[in-house]
């Protein structure tokens, strides 16, 4: 089997963090791949919720959008979207929420709204979607984002969703119920908040990646935990399952649509 890509390694690293039976609020892209890889390997009883209203979904191919028909067809049940946000997420019935973002700061606050000033942005990004309330209410948040000095920044252009705010307990003092970003899975390893300062620090590296490489990719002076875990490369089994899932997905998304007119 050929050497894996960093995307594959990130996906596998995230999947391994998911325990069997946990309830995950899934986002499109790498999080969706990670959650389904977990379901197809070590966590067959994981419950996947997509914000379109599909609960307990078991897609055979990854959805392109958050509301592909595949998600409804393979769901245990489908509910209206307000139910998802009120009765499940806000009510505290989600263990893990996955988020991505264009920018993240050292306390795990996220920007997916604008680059530049809000009223005259240089880049208008898609916006909040489910993120602010996922960030608030999930028992834990896992962030998946590729690192660069443009994305892991000293100062966000806009705060779309709350991480640990300014750290040192600011989040819990403000009354936000969920546990916040417990893990940031990136393309060199993983960051997690320091127990007191709540600043993200380097806690795990992909096998063969150096601390210097991690520091170079982060736009703030990255602190390093006393002990750094090594994340083993994907096993042949993990890669086989993930690549088969990706291949099925590519084939399905290229399939012509038949309109019964």
């Amino acid at each position, binding site marked *: 089997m050929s050497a894996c890509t960093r995307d594959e390694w990130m996906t596998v690293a995230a999947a391994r963090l998911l325990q069997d039976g946990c309830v995950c609020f899934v986002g499109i892209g790498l999080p969706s791949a990670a959650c389904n890889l977990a379901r197809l390997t070590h966590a067959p009883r994981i419950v996947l919720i997509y914000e379109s209203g599909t609960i307990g979904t078991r897609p055979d191919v990854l959805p392109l959008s958050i*509301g592909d028909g595949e998600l409804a067809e393979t769901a245990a049940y489908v509910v209206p979207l*307000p139910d998802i946000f009120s009765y499940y997420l806000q009510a505290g019935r989600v263990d893990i929420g996955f988020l991505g973002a264009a920018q993240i700061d050292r306390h795990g606050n996220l920007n997916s709204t604008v680059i530049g000033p809000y009223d005259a942005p240089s880049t208008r990004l898609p916006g909040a979607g*489910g993120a*602010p309330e996922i*960030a608030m209410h999930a028992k834990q948040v896992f962030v998946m984002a590729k690192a660069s000095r443009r994305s892991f920044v000293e100062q966000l252009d806009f705060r779309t969703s709350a991480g640990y*705010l300014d750290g040192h307990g600011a989040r819990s003092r403000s009354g936000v119920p969920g546990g916040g970003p417990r893990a940031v899975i990136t393309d060199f390893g993983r960051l997690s908040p320091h127990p007191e300062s709540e600043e993200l620090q380097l806690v795990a590296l992909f096998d063969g990646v150096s601390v210097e490489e991690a520091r170079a990719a982060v736009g703030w002076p990255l602190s390093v935990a006393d002990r750094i875990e090594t994340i083993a490369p994907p096993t042949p089994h993990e890669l086989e399952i993930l690549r088969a899932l990706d291949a099925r997905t590519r084939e399905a998304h290229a399939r012509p*649509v038949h309109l019964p007119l």
Partner: protein
Amino acid sequence: MQLTLADAIENYVAHGASVALEGFTHLIPFAAAHEIIRQRKRDLHLIRMTPDLVYDQMIGMGCARKLTFSWGGNPGVGSLHRLRDAVEHHWPLPLELDEHSHAGMAAAFCAGAARLPFGTLRGYAGTDLPARNANIRSVTCPFTGETLAAVPAINPDITILHAQRADREGNVAIDGIVGAAREAALAARVLIVTVEDIVDELPPAMNAIVLPHWIVSAIVHCPGGAYPSYAQGHYTRDNAFYRQWDSVARERDSFMAWMHEHVLQQRDHRAFIESLPVARA
């Protein structure tokens, strides 16, 4: 109550109206949007949780003055380039934004459906959105003293949905992913529904989503009316089309040329579909 699409849009959608074309990825009423574009409706306040390609097209064609929304991307692909151009460069027109989160907008639709003045939620905590949108405020619970987020009810002048089927009386049945379609329908002053089929009798489904005939203003028979979105049980989402839209919409010229060829120069939705490669699939 059963109308042609052209008549429904002409009769009910006035310049300057607030219009919600709902459907969360599924059942997006593209045919109705294209008819609004053909009839050159202007100055609309567009409302949709996910603007999607459908509002990218309407914004790029100059139909909108304001957008209420909560996530404005091309799902799984990237940017909505026409939305971005309107916000970043005011092309073809400036676009006022009323920006929410999904949870906030869902609460606003629920309040609208219940004819309450505002919706409330535990939301927006620690975000910059309230500082940028006067429609995101807070309210104190009279029982516990807790501070909650508050958003004004959304009551569109017109909501337009696409659904799988209606019966001859005008009752509408929707299945699959429903998003906030039910709430948007019940919140509206006027409800237009385009459908794949009109049947003598709806299949019995005690807990399915049904919109009763007395809240529906007009039914339009419009097979394929959600394409390139989809109708569960009828046709799938054209994910290849969504990917290709990225290059069509990236530049103003290619966007305008595409809209002229496939929407403005086509008399209706069937002709739109026949102008595309999908018709030959």
